[in-house]
Every structure is written in structure tokens, then in C-alpha cells.
């Protein structure tokens, strides 16, 4: 019997992960050679180009949401991991504490300082600043700091009584001066050519000025200087340019048989707002034989409006009235990313950088493989 090529419908069906009341089915992708007898599924750049698309849903400086449609989970996951762990950012790496009489310990204070996200001029951050490497000879460490690999910061705060406070004041922030130490109290000390890249609006500063670092009481003091270096998230989470970079698969809701009237309203309540819309059954619907709409003209019916907003809670599968009327699933090749930048990169630039990074890694590997077989 000659092999019949799969229909478009069949190809669509193969892309869906089944989501049932208690189980998940068809988790793995099947578009690889040798899975379907008589079908060629080896990877092909032209086929990939035809099927691939990118769609932006939201693109704000610090938050972006977009879809990669028609790519494999391995690639999508590689991008996600690169965004989290391999895009370099600047963060506080060493803290030199001259005095700290606050209740927060030196170690804990240093750790807190390290986690504060900073922003600055993009040209300076991404092109001017280079990596700092700890010299092999420990004694040479003071000769390893240059304007192109180290950014210097200072934090000098002293808490005192506020004589202008009302006599019955109980709020420590009014009773004392500098009772709270915030990220905005950190001072940037440009050295060398750093003035050229980080001045005015481009100065190195905390992204969120209201981060509370420590609380002080009169007589307590924090006096320290800090060095910032470039690093990657695989080394420490403070270097990660994203707060979250995650993806989820596109939900699929298929209403197999009509859901009408009060059932439709209940069905809509099983999903987040906006996923299911309520329409009127039209004359054409009712005229269609075998559609289940016959004799229901003018009644309310449930239609899928925006499956992307669904959280796939499976609530609708709990109710007996929707049994066999609805099928839930997810599209295996439709990845909805959510990238939230911590402020040093534009959120869409993080993704572009991740693509460039993966490409460079692949080219490096190619070179090594060519050398290996020679």
C-alpha cells in the first residue's frame, strides 16, 4: 500500500499536547526522521523558514512578551537559559567596609548590596566596559583595576537625631536623619574615561532608588566603598539581566459540541476573563444540520476568544455538563516568552543578545569540530 502524505489537519493534530482531567498526553515532539514510516522529517532550513515566525505582544523597556512559533523546545529553552545565565551585566562584586556600626552584619550588608540592580549608559556598559579577571598573582590585584573594567561606588551614611522633629514624634524617619539607607544614597565615583560614557542621565545608578539597604539609629554609621565588575548569571544570580525569562506553550481550547445558554455562562466562568466570549447563535448556525445548533437560534453560545490568556487550569474538565464537549491542549511549537529586564538592558535587546550568543557559540563549536576531524 503506498504511503499517503499526512493531511494539514493531521499535521496540526501532531503539534498538540493533550491535556485531560488527570493526564497529559503526546508530550514529546514527533517531527524527526524515522518516526512516521514513509515520511521525511529531517531538519531543513527552508522548511524551518517557512514555518517560523515571531510575534510581539508587548514590548516595554523593562518587560516584553513575544511568541516564537514553529521552533523546537530545545532551541526555545536554549534562548531562555542564555537570557538568564549568559548575558553579561554590571554588579557590585567587592565591598570595602571602613565602618559599619548598624545592626546588619558586614557579610549580609555586602550580599544585599551585590543584589541591587544598576543602570547606566548602554554604550559604556556594553562596549566600553570589559571583563575583569582576578590576577593569578594575588599581590598584583591592585594593579588589575582600570577604568574599563571596574566601576567605583561609595556609600557614606551617618544617622543623627533630628532636632527639628516634633517632641511627640514616633516615626523614626522623621525623628532621625538618615534612619533608612536607600539605594539612592549610593554615590558613583567616575574614574578616567568613565566620565565620557557615564555622565548625566547615563550615570551609573540604581534602577530602583527606593531599595532599602539598612536601617540606622542615632550614632550608627555605614561607610564603605564598592567595586563593580561585569559578570554572567551562571556565576551569580546578581549578574542575571532578567528578573524572569520564562516561556509557556500556547493553550488550545477546542469546543467540540455546542455549549449553550446558562451552560455557556458557566463555561466562561471556568476560564480567566476574556478567554471565552458569549455570542448569539445566528440563523446560519441554526440552519446547519448536525451542528447541534438546530432550533437554538438567538440563544447564547460559548466561543473561544483569546486562548493565549488561559492559564489551563482544567476547571472546565471537572464539570459533567461539559463532558466530551471541550478538548484542552497546548501547541508544542508555540512558545510565549515573558522577559522582564532588571534595567541594564532593554528587554527585547536581551533576547536579540541571546540569539547572537547562541550563534557565536555554535560557530565556535563548528570551528572546533572542523579542527577535530582534520
Amino acid at each position, binding site marked *: 500500500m503506498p504511503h499517503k502524505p499526512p493531511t494539514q489537519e493531521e499535521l496540526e493534530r501532531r503539534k498538540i499536547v493533550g491535556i485531560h482531567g488527570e493526564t497529559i498526553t503526546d508530550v514529546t515532539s514527533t517531527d524527526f526522521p524515522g518516526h512516521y514510516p514513509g515520511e521525511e522529517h529531517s531538519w531543513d532550513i527552508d522548511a524551518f523558514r517557512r514555518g517560523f515566525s515571531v510575534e510581539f505582544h508587548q514590548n516595554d523597556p523593562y518587560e516584553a512578551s513575544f511568541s516564537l512559533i514553529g521552533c523546537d523546545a530545545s532551541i526555545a529553552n536554549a534562548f531562555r537559559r542564555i537570557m538568564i545565565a549568559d548575558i553579561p551585566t554590571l554588579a557590585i562584586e567587592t565591598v570595602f*567596609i*571602613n565602618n559599619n*556600626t548598624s545592626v546588619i552584619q558586614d557579610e549580609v550588608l555586602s550580599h544585599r548590596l551585590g543584589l541591587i540592580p544598576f543602570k547606566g549608559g548602554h554604550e559604556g556598559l556594553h562596549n566600553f566596559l570589559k571583563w575583569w579577571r582576578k590576577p593569578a598573582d594575588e599581590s598584583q590585584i591592585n594593579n588589575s583595576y582600570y577604568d574599563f573594567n571596574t566601576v567605583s561606588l561609595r556609600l557614606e551614611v551617618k544617622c543623627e537625631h533630628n532636632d527639628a522633629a516634633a517632641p511627640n514624634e514616633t516615626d523614626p524617619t522623621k525623628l532621625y536623619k538618615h534612619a533608612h539607607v536607600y539605594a539612592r544614597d549610593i554615590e558613583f565615583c567616575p574614574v578616567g574615561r568613565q566620565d565620557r560614557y557615564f555622565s548625566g542621565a547615563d550615570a551609573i545608578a540604581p534602577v530602583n532608588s527606593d531599595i532599602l539597604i539598612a536601617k540606622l539609629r542615632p550614632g550608627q554609621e555605614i561607610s564603605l566603598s564598592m567595586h563593580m565588575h561585569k559578570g554572567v548569571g551562571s556565576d551569580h544570580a546578581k549578574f542575571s539581566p532578567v528578573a524572569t525569562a520564562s516561556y509557556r506553550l500556547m493553550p488550545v481550547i477546542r469546543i467540540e459540541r455546542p455549549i449553550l445558554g446558562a451552560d455557556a455562562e458557566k463555561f466562561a466562568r471556568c476560564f480567566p476573563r476574556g478567554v471565552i466570549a458569549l455570542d448569539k447563535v445566528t440563523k446560519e448556525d441554526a440552519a446547519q444540520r448536525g451542528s447541534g445548533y438546530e432550533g437554538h437560534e438567538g440563544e447564547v453560545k460559548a466561543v473561544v476568544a483569546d486562548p493565549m490568556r488561559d492559564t489551563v487550569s482544567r476547571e472546565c474538565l471537572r464539570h459533567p455538563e461539559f463532558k466530551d464537549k471541550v478538548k484542552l491542549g497546548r501547541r508544542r511549537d508555540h512558545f510565549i516568552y515573558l522577559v522582564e529586564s532588571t534595567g541594564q538592558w532593554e528587554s527585547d535587546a536581551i533576547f536579540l543578545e541571546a540569539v547572537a550568543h547562541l550563534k557565536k557559540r555554535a560557530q565556535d563549536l563548528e570551528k572546533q569540530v572542523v579542527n577535530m576531524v582534520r
Partner: protein
Amino acid sequence: MSREQYQVPTTGSGNTGGGAFSAPAPRDYAGESGGVMYYMCGDCAVRVPLEKGAPIRCQKCGARVLYKERTKRMVQFEAR
């Protein structure tokens, strides 16, 4: 005080009954660091200057618990 001047206190050698305790020669703190040491009051956290022989007491609130000040040396930490 130099090393040669220091005497090991010998309480158990001759007089085992105790009582006779020869204190080491008093150290001359005034000559070393200007005479005044600063301490932190345990109650009101004010900076208390203390001279040699002065009663250990906060001038502001009268508390008798004083703490040594933190070292003036720089301490280096990794922000991790």
C-alpha cells in the same frame, strides 16, 4: 611597658593560701594614645571618652555597660 619589665604573676609558689597578689607594673596608657579611649554606651549608644582610672560610666545616661568601638581597619567582603 617593655617585655623585660613584665613579671609572671606567681600566686601559687610561696603563699598557697592566696591573698598576696603582686600586680604587674601599671601600663602607661596616656603616653601611648593620647590618654583618651572612646567606648560606645550600651544603653544610649553615645560615644563615651574615658581617661585612665575614670569610672566606667556613660556621661550622658549613667549606664555602666560600655562597648569597645569597631576596628578602624578596612574589611573587604565579596558581595555574594
